[in-house]
């Protein structure tokens, strides 16, 4: 019995030693997740310290764009909310901030002024080599999806989109882009 347990421990240890470097390497070279925090969220460090993982933001979201991390983004952000803009953008209804008990997501009124001031989820960027409008095929879908048209995004000749620095990064443009891969992406700004 003694010998068996010792052998088991040895085998387990050897297996762990053999696997450890590969898992570490895998973690190091894993492509980073491009995710947004809900609108009005604090800077990442403060957000993680504040969020108690209660899940009310997702339960309040009428668009069901808020999802929750498992272990894929590290132990620190387990069960914290995130948004993948290509899958579903944020409609800036601001209900998550209203329901958040800890202030990890700030309360912001659902008005253009307050949203432009308070929300900084990220910033959209157009890849002109992928964008149809820049290839001479009039598109303009992103402009029409934008909840802040002519403020956050303007269109020029052939509906070529130009993102202004007022963009709050809700991700509706990226969600709506008809190109695959998408020609407009939100670069997250998590502070």
């Amino acid at each position, binding site marked *: 019995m003694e010998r068996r347990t010792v052998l088991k421990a040895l085998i387990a240890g050897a297996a762990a030693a053999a696997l450890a470097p590969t898992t570490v390497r895998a973690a190091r070279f894993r492509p980073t997740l491009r995710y947004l925090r809900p609108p009005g969220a604090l800077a990442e*460090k*403060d957000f*993680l*310290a*504040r*969020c*108690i*993982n*209660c*899940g*009310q933001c*997702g*339960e*309040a*979201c*009428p*668009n*069901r764009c808020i*999802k*929750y991390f*498992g*272990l894929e983004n590290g*132990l*620190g*952000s*387990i*069960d*914290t909310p995130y948004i993948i803009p290509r899958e579903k953008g944020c409609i800036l209804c601001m*209900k998550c901030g209203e*329901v958040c*008990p*800890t*202030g990890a997501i700030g309360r912001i009124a659902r008005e253009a002024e307050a949203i432009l001031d308070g929300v900084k989820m990220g910033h959209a960027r157009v890849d002109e080599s992928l964008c149809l409008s820049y290839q001479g095929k009039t598109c303009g879908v992103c402009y029409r999806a934008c909840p802040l048209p002519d403020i956050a995004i303007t269109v020029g000749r052939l509906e070529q989109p130009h993102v202004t620095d007022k963009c709050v990064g809700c991700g509706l443009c990226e969600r709506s882009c008809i190109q695959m891969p998408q020609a407009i992406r939100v670069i997250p700004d998590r502070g």
Partner: protein
Amino acid sequence: MTGQRHKPFFLWRHLNRLRWVSLSIVFAMLVVLPFLHVYQTYVAAHAYDLLSPPEKRIYDVMEALTQPFVSDPAEDLDAVKGNTWSGTFWGLKLSDPLAALGQMAAGRTLYWPFLVTALLPVAFTALFGRFFCGWICPATFIYELNSNFASWLRWAGFKPGNRHFDKRIKYAVLALGVIGSAVTGSVLVAAVYPPAIIGREIYYVIALGGFSAGMVFFLATLLFDLLVARRGFCRYLCPGGALYSLLGRYRVVRIRRIVENCNDCAKCNAICEFGLDPLRDGFGQECNNCSACIAVCPRDALTFTIRPTDTAAQGPGHLGWQYRREVEAPGGQEAREEEAA
């Protein structure tokens, strides 16, 4: 010993049933709320015609359930959100004291708007002790069913685990969770606290389409309870239970043994989910006032009382053989004849 004996208020022995009603309501709420949320999203999207048949069924059922109470589902159903870890009930925000403690540790600041949401639970815990564990906790609902399942297994000839550990381990788990939260700067204690996990995971599986990592942990605790120690996680490991025990140490409402009625049958000790010792007045800070011992007592020898400390050990019950032999021995013969007559 003849004639008037102190009897507990007759409703106390039915409280255990009321407790099951309470547990079931909380659990049912955790299941219904995600469906209501999904229904809200369908309403908000004006999407009925685009729904698949199962989604239409959710829509119809939820509409039938809520129609008498709300006029605008997308807005009005926001009144109740969340779970037992932290929730909103018609504007009243309530949070688990462990959430407040974990967040204090993680942020190393006091964020008052959140901390006040834990005040009411803390006050109730000061009054009723670890009542959350017995009356509200959605994990308890499953753990107790699991415990009943274990007793069926025992009846069927299997041997579920019944090992005993030191009950103080859970205070170490609480301390580790708080220190871990402080070190990582994230409320990690939420990841090892079953009621928080259950609340989240039910939402995940209904609204987001799948369980997450927490479910693996929860299943492990179920197996631990079944194979290693009865209600082992709650007794020995739960960080929230530890916090509630500390807060409820000087609870005002507690269970007391009426030694005159007790016949030392020990059914209370056998039924106690938390492995306490009502038979020898050993309730302590871990009793969750679940009242299962009151319900099972054949002699009305357990009752609620209002005092901040337990009664000191009162010795053998006056109806038991040990008391008769040791204390009543000289005149015991007469007393027995009197009772028989």
